[in-house]
């Protein structure tokens, strides 16, 4: 459903993504790992449409040329991004924000606005998913939220937006053990045959819960290794040393059961 071909991204003359290829099928969960500065967040923002990057290559989501679309059009096409640093919007009620967001994409798809009653039902289910109380919706968007609450709010939004493709950028960073469990089980219950996910993370812990279908290692703007979830275990044990400062040819042979490389 998502095809990324030879994607490059530069910012202020510095190239960050250097020809990235990625194919994601229906319902698949792909983890992207990699050292700091390897281009993981840039990949997420390039997909979501953040301004300020010079891009080349081709990205299609369900056949639609993603790079030609504005961020809001990509959202309407079914792309959702979970932000590493969710943004605070003081004075704007969380519930109002969510309803406006949902109705915006519905309108763009030619659907009717959701009724207040149906929305409330949807919001209640989403709240349960992230184990938050009703008052969570009555606070201003992310304003004064703790780090954990902000991340839970991202998952809550994903539950409401029901995207085709979720790109979760370090949704597990800065979480304590309980919050991580809640976030992971939230993500797991939102998995389905019609929803694919790209999970960007530094840590094995989240992947222990999620058991992604594929794990990719992103180094210096390219995917240098792909495998199943055992690749993540290898990384946890050995770090990225095997992949950093080597040409691709120098990657040592490792026995990786089911690796797709």
């Amino acid at each position, binding site marked *: 459903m998502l095809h990324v071909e030879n994607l490059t991204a530069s910012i202020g003359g510095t190239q960050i993504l250097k020809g990235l290829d990625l194919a994601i099928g229906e319902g698949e969960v792909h983890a992207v790992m990699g050292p700091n500065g390897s281009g993981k967040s840039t990949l997420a923002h390039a997909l979501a449409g953040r301004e300020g990057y010079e891009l080349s290559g081709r990205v299609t989501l369900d056949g639609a040329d993603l790079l030609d679309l504005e961020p809001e059009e990509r959202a309407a096409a079914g792309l959702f991004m979970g932000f590493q640093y969710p943004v605070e919007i003081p004075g*704007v009620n969380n519930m109002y924000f969510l309803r406006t967001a949902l109705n915006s994409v519905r309108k763009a798809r030619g659907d009717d606005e959701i009724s207040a009653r149906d929305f409330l039902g949807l919001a209640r289910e989403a709240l349960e998913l992230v184990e938050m109380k009703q008052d969570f919706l009555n606070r201003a968007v992310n304003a004064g939220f703790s780090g954990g609450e902000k991340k839970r709010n991202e998952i809550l939004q994903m539950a409401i937006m029901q995207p085709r493709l979720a790109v979760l950028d370090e949704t597990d960073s800065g979480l304590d053990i309980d919050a991580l469990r809640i976030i992971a089980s939230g993500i797991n219950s939102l998995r389905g045959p019609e929803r694919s996910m790209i999970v960007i993370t530094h840590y094995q812990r989240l992947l222990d819960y999620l058991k992604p279908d594929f794990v990719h290692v992103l180094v210096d703007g390219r995917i240098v290794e792909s495998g199943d979830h055992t690749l993540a275990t290898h990384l946890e044990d050995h770090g990225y040393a095997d992949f950093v400062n080597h040409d691709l040819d120098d990657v040592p042979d490792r026995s990786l059961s089911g690796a797709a490389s």
Partner: protein
Amino acid sequence: MTDQRLELEQLAEAGYEYGFTTDLDTDIAPPGLDEGTIRLISAKKNEPDWLLEWRLKALAAWQAMEEPDWAKLEIDPIDYQSISYWAAPKPKPQLESMDEVDPEIREMFDKLGIPLHEQKMLSNVAVDAIVDSVSVTTTFKETLAEAGVIFCSFSEAVNDHPDLVREHLGSVVPVRDNYFAALNSAVFSDGSFCYIPAGVRCPMELSTYFRINSQNTGQFERTLIVAEEGSHVSYLEGCTAPMRDENQLHAAVVELVAKDRAEIKYSTVQNWYPGDENGVGGIYNFVTKRGRAHTDAKISWTQVETGSAITWKYPSVILQGDRSVGEFYSVALSSKRQQADTGTKMVHIGADTTSTIISKGISAGRGQNTYRGLVKTMRSAENARNYTQCDSLLLGKDCGANTIPYIEVKNPTAQVEHEASTSTVGEDQLYYCRQRGMSEEDAMSMIVNGFCREVFDELPMEFAVEAQRLLSVSLEGSVG
């Protein structure tokens, strides 16, 4: 990044949707201001001698005063002799009833979304409609009279309730208070008068709607609200004007008297024509608004200022009685070439008096927005308390925001708090909203409305919706 900045600025530029003119047959005085002008206005209105004398005294005071230049405003010199000080729509002969409003005026107010026909009014609001200098109609008079509430044009009040007017006129804003108040006192043509008897809770919102229509005229209205002991009233004013290339002068005075335990809530949605992107045209808005709060009384000013080329306005409260309360909630938007120098004065005289000031300034385009506020606690004001919060939001790089607080504390038991912040609408906020599917314009409008939330929450419900819409329209631009 530069593109994004540009778009932000374009978002702030907007069309003015009330810029039409209505072709009314108007009775207009020749330009110029001298004793003869005052006598003409007074004669046109059949005023009693005491009022004419009051006006003449004000004119003499004004002539001896200097135009103030302390505000952070750049204004072309105003030629007070080139302005006409009297303009009134000529009433058309009516077949059915003399009280009927001229259909053209009614149409004008329909266009503005202000129905003057009582049966058409959905909300529980009585309206006094003022065109140029004269009140054209007041709705729901009978309903209000049943509660003992007087709500009428200022001219009618001078005729029908002369004692009430004479007692309170100039009691809060004296003739010599300032240059523009003196000018208004000399030439004011009409306005609204409102009297709430002791213990009465006014059964509906009262509203005055001001419309400047004629060319080369100034508008000088006067509003006087007297709330007797233990009474309660909520009052709203709205204003619009046609788009014209010249600057038009609006110098109003509003006086509020809240007797013991009375409460007055005064809300303004000001949308005078702001002029165009190059600073051509627009209303010069010089307004003096002040209330006097007696023992246990409360006066609350809420304003949403989106219009006018120049805004010079400091709605104030004299906290005279013990335990009296003053509040000021303000949203001021300056875009295009608009300049606003606005704020409040809270003068604490009584003991245990409290005041709250929440000011939200939004600058866009090449707009300049200055908050100027005075908090003063007199020696008698034991345990006075003030809390002030001034937030400025900048949209774009060619606009400016200033916060100028004056604090004078003469009683050591007073507590005065001042907080100020300046922020911009972040590109990351817009991106976040857009990633969730909202258009850039919707996102901008949502973020700015969020910034103003604390003030909008103070507006009566129907006007809060109106204010949000107005702000969105004022921010709408050519994006998308």
